[in-house]
């Protein structure tokens, strides 16, 4: 059963394909664990506590009131303004990612309620070309914020992204500016923006919209930062500490407000939204 009321954007949902096995092997601890138990456990390994990626559907289901999510994503998909081809064409990457995720791009936006409080929620899907931000994601985020302004309700963004989408070149880079500009409108309207950073929130997403939350909450285990380990080793060959870009590092250095366990995120939002009831 899909949590999306409106399924028009969902072509194929790989997760809905019948499980070919009831068991999975945890990449972190190597244990064979029962898939259903993993799912019931917020997609956290019951054996070692490792967080597995969530699909957009799983993430939404975990955060909002049952059946409250109304997908309002704009009916758009990536154009290919540069006719970009590397080892494969951008067009092909998009189609494959769509096939894999059942989503038009790496983000879904919708209206929902969290303990009856109306919100606009946007959730990235890392499986879709690394959750990278191209023109579609930029537009959907802005659409989400504008809907929040119309509805006079909070905007919540769950980031899971490696950064800008390379295949759209400067178009992608400029989404950082675009989302920042619309975020200013949300602030002018006096409406809260809650940014949730999950594994990973980095590059152009971390250096723009994700870092502009009134409140920034990291999911435990999130990787948060601008430049990845590879870039640093490539550029300045610096030794990196073990806690580099961990949630704890970001917290210690004042970049985020709170670190929250995945299983507690809904309650966290519920309690936070309570303070903003009079705002809307």
């Amino acid at each position, binding site marked *: 059963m899909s949590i999306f009321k409106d399924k028009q*954007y969902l072509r194929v949902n790989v997760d809905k394909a019948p499980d070919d096995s009831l068991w999975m092997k945890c990449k972190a601890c190597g244990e064979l664990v029962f898939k259903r138990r993993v799912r019931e456990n917020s997609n956290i390994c019951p054996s070692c506590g490792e967080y597995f990626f969530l699909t957009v559907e799983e993430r939404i289901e975990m955060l909002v009131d049952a059946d409250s999510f109304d997908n309002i994503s704009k*009916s758009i*998909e*990536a*154009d290919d*303004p*540069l006719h970009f081809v*590397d*080892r494969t064409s951008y*067009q092909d*990457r998009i189609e*494959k990612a*769509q*096939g*894999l995720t059942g989503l038009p791009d790496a983000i879904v936006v919708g209206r929902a309620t969290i303990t009856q409080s109306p919100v606009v929620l946007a959730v990235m899907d890392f*499986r*879709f*070309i*690394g959750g*990278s931000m191209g*023109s579609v994601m*930029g*537009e959907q985020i802005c659409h989400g914020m504008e809907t929040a302004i119309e509805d006079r309700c909070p905007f919540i963004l769950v980031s899971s992204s*490696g*950064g*800008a989408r*390379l295949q759209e*070149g*400067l*178009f992608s*880079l*400029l989404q*950082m*500016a*675009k989302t*920042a*500009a*619309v975020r*200013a*409108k949300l602030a002018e309207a006096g409406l809260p923006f809650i940014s949730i950073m999950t594994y990973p929130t*980095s*590059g*152009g997403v*971390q*250096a*723009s*919209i994700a*870092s*502009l939350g009134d409140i920034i909450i990291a999911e435990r285990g999130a990787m948060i930062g*601008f*430049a*990845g380990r590879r*870039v*640093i080793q*490539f550029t*300045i060959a610096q030794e*990196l500490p073990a806690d*580099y870009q961990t949630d704890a*590092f970001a917290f210690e*250095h004042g970049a985020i407000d709170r670190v929250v366990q995945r299983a507690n995120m809904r309650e966290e939002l519920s309690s936070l939204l309570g303070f903003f009831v009079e705002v809307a």
Partner: protein
Amino acid sequence: MSDERTLDLLETKIEELKQLNAMDGIDLSGEITKLEKKLVELRRKLYSNLSDWERVKIARNPKRPYALDYIKLMFDGFYEIHGDRMIGDDRALLTGLAQLDGRTVMLVAQQKGRTTEENKERYFGMTRPQGYRKAVRAMKLAERFSFPVVTLIDTPGAYPGVESEASNIGGAIAESLLAMSQLRTPIVSVVIGEGGSGGALAIGLADRVLMLENAVYSVITPEGAAAILWKEKDRSQEAAAALQLTAEHLLQLGLIDGVIPEPLGGAHKDFAMTVAALKPSVVGLLDELRSLGIDELLDARFRRYRAVGSFRELGTSHEASSSDEKVSSENEADAAIISNDSPDA
């Protein structure tokens, strides 16, 4: 095909002939004139057909004019202001008051170093959090006095590393974008050399954006793109072309407002000529922007950035993929785990 070094050699030879001509009374003037014509012709041929990768190399040429050269030649009386008032001063990003055509502007300019020592001081032109925070301070100062802001962009990217992350480099870039989107004074940005990703854009959210003819502006360096997408570093030339990072491409894509011509061979061949081309454009744009009401200006700036992007109606212009091939999501994901900031080594 002749490359720049060959032509430089030819130029030297012509100079030598000229000296000979003057010294010994032998009349070589006819031959010299012919050679000079030939040189111009060869140069034109060479530079009229530069590959994107060749432009990347010109954009990075350390002989190229840097911010301080423009400050000297294009502006009057630079009064530099320093420090973010919080943790430090970044020498890779300069801020200060200057006069342009008799009027005060706030300059926010990225500065690379030429010598090893200077590069150490300036972190090879890579801006740190204290640089972006200084920039925001300078821009808000400008706003208070209605001084327009002119930014000169020239960086391989924001400075990566532990120190930067510990001072929230990503947050500093984001805050700069937010501040620029709301700044109540005109902003003109010029990419004078390397427009390196988020580290460049952080001071590039402007009412008008110009690029010098051989400047580049990109979401990632060609080397970074080659490494991530092609998995082969020596595909940088191909990556440079694919990224459409040159001024000409970006103008065609509608992402910048104008291209400033450079002297044949590049801006470093003639600083004065470069400045002569750039200065009236910037002055003209500022005049144009000053003539707008401030709310009108901010509305237009908002609409500019609100509109940027290229996408299409779902399913409109290409067939749904029927490919059964399953790609590894890990592999795909990998393709995007990049920083917006991967300067070349």
